[in-house]
Every structure is written in structure tokens, then in C-alpha cells.
């Protein structure tokens, strides 16, 4: 039983599958996510795969300041991701709503609605910071399994080096 737990811990750390959700983002962070998956940064060497269906994913990546139109979709998709799961907020918008703060069209920031595990600030963040955030979320996921989320971690904006 202990062996199985350790095996599962390693597997969760080594195989983070992502689902990317745009909640009203300007597309800047989305482009950086694509860059993180593209040949230059190659997140697949860490086992990262972008999945088409939220049912397949372990980590939900949310970009954008969570508009009133998008909030229900964000909650639905969060519920569709099967546990154990983690949420990574990409960019400054889901963290603080950024320049759109106090807008009447926003329901954000994101952590008012779903528990966030890792914040990757930046406008937009660099691809290596995004990869560092995803890896951090995978480690968190491996440690806590299906337990409730702990307080969020913030990836420093200068996180230039990614450790596998």
C-alpha cells in the first residue's frame, strides 16, 4: 500500500496534463502558454501534455481577469476536471484583475471563486515562468493528492531557470 502511494506520487509529479481556459484574457498569456509547449521550450520533456478535454486534465490553467460572462464557465470547467486537481492562474489578470481593477464587467479575481494553487504573475509571464508554475503545481498535486488545497504559491517573475 505504501509502495503504491509512492508510485502514485511519482506518477502525479511526472505526468501533469493541462487544460487551458481563457476567461476573458487579451490572448497575451495564451500565446505565452503556446510558446511554453512549442519546440523552443518543449514542456513535453517534463511530461506536460495539453489536453483537449477538461476530464483528462490534472492542472487547470486559467488566463484572463474572469469576466461576468466567463465566471459560470470557469466554475463548470473546474468541476469537470476530475480530482486530484490543481489550478494555476497564468498572468496578473486572474491574480489581481490587473489594469481592469474595479471594472463592473468583472467577477474576478479568480481565487474568489475557485481555489488557486499557484500564481504565475506577469503581463504576460515568460514561458519558463509558466513551466516553473506548472511543475510546482505538479509537485503540490503529488504531495497532497486529493486533500483540500493549501494556500497558494506565487512564482517569482524572474524565474528564469526551470528545474525538472
Amino acid at each position: 500500500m505504501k509502495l503504491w502511494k509512492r508510485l502514485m506520487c511519482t506518477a502525479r509529479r511526472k505526468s501533469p496534463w493541462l487544460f487551458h481556459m481563457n476567461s476573458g484574457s487579451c490572448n497575451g498569456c495564451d500565446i505565452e502558454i503556446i510558446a511554453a509547449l512549442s519546440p523552443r521550450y518543449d514542456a513535453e520533456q517534463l511530461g506536460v501534455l495539453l489536453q483537449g478535454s477538461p476530464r483528462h486534465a490534472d492542472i487547470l490553467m486559467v488566463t484572463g481577469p474572469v469576466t461576468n460572462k466567463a465566471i459560470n464557465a470557469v466554475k463548470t470547467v473546474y468541476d469537470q476536471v476530475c480530482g486530484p486537481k490543481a489550478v494555476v492562474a497564468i498572468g496578473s489578470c486572474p491574480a489581481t484583475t490587473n489594469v481592469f481593477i474595479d471594472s463592473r464587467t468583472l467577477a474576478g479575481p479568480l481565487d474568489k471563486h475557485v481555489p488557486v494553487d499557484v500564481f504565475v504573475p506577469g503581463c504576460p509571464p515568460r514561458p519558463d515562468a509558466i513551466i516553473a508554475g506548472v511543475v510546482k503545481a505538479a509537485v503540490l498535486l503529488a504531495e497532497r493528492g486529493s486533500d483540500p488545497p493549501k494556500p497558494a504559491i506565487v512564482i517569482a517573475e524572474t524565474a528564469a531557470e526551470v528545474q525538472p
Partner: protein
Amino acid sequence: MMLTALARMLIFPGLLFAVPAAWFFLWVERKAVARMQERVGPPFMQPFWDFTKLLGKSTPPRPGIAGFIMRAWPLIAVGSAAGAVGLLPVLPLSGGFEGDLILLLALLELPSICIIAAGFSSRSIFGEIGSAREAALSVSYNIVFLLAIVSIAASQHTFRLEALASMHPSFLTVLGIIAILICLPAKLHINPFSLPNAEQEIYAGPMTEYAGPELAMWELAHGLEWVAATGLVATLVAPHFVLAWGTTLLAGCLFVVLSVAVVLLLSVLAAATARLAIDSSVRFYWQCTLIFAVLAISSALFVRFWL
């Protein structure tokens, strides 16, 4: 005899060999595509970690008989794909249970029927689109695939797998093997015929609603399909070498090497091409490839009855 048959089904080339081989082939495919795109690619154990992680995930509640049926499809797919691998005539004169080609073809076909049924029983709109595409594609490539197999069998006057594995190569069998190779990308859902599970475009196609251990079973079934399909080509290509050298160990090694070569060939094709639309894919099989398949079978029948 009974023991040999069991050993073939459970050890080599059956389950004990087939499951690690399935993970290995999935890794070879991903790694080859990554190298073609100048990436590093996933680590060696990646398909195993993916499988283990999926086993530990939860699934959404699926009440009632519909949920039961939905959970059953991936298991049937894994069972039939594993059975197809176990039937492959890899080792010469091994004895035991001799399945014939018709059984092997049925077992090879069952996973794709399971995928079609799974997409419809998940009642997701994306699953249904994926299943409809899979059905249209399967009608197109299966005609060519079956004609190619039948022409090989007709040229050898037999449906027995052992006899087919030890046949002497002829022009007709080469033609048939090329036709089978053309069908494999569609059978394995890789580019340019990846449109049933078209990632991102229709979410995940028939698999959209599957999660956790069910998805792990689909991944395993897909890997086993790789082993069975490439193994079929390997056994059809290999025979005369195996007969010349004879030993069991060599036959096994040759089988693995030839299968990996076919996997590499298909991965390079997948990395070099983009996804075709459904009408182009169907047209490709009905207009361009069917002619060669009909030629192959008519010449096989001609050789059979008049020469």
C-alpha cells in the same frame, strides 16, 4: 499443447509482453515526433507514468445501465486488442491454439467499433462527432485493409496464420503489405488521419467524457492496437528470414525490431503531415487506394484459379 497456447496468450506475444511493448511503442511514437520537431521529447517511462497517474484519478459518477455500458467499452477494447496480439504467429511452429486470420481481423477491428460505441454512449456532442468521423473513416479504410489481407490469404490458399507466417514472399504479398501500411495511420488515428480524436478541434473526440481509470484503459487499448497492427506487418514481412534461422529467440527479436521499424515509419509520417478533413480522407481511400486493393485481389484470384 494447452500450456503452449496459454503461454502464447499470457507471456509472449500475449499480455506479459504486450503491455510493456504497448507503452514502449507509445513512447517511441511520441519521442520520434518530438525529435522530428527538434524537441527533446518525453522521458522513457512517460506512458507508464501517464497510465499510473490516470489509475489514481477519480471519475465522474455514471449512474444506471448507460454508465455501466460506458465503463465496459474500454475494457472490451483492451481485451480484444490483447487477444489480437496473442494470436500473432510470431514464433515458428509453436503449436497450441491456432487462430485463423478471420479471428485476428475481427479482434483488430473490435477496438474501433468500441470507440464508435463509446462516443455515442457518452452522449457528449463532441463524442458523437468523433464517433461519426471514426465510423466514416473505418468504412473507408477497412475495405482496402480487408481486400489487402484477403489477397494475401488468397495468394497463399489459406486463412491459417501459421501458414501465412511461413509463406514465401511474392509480388502479391508485397503489394498487400504496402496496402496494409497505407491503412495503418487511419487504423491508429495518427496524422494525417487523426480526425476521429482530433485534439483541440473537437475536444477529445469519442474520449471527451472519459476520465481516470477508464481513460487509462483507452490509452492501453491504443498502445495494444499499435503492437497488434505493427506486429501483423512484422509477421507478414519476417517469415522467410525466420524460417532460415529457425531459433525462437531470433524470431522474437526480429519481430520486435521489425515492429519498432514500422512504428518509426508511421511516426515520421505523422510528424511530417497535417490533419486531413473527413472528405479528403474518405476520398483518399475510396479513389486513390481502392484501385490498388482491387488490383491486388483480382490478380490474387487470377493466380489462384488460372495458373
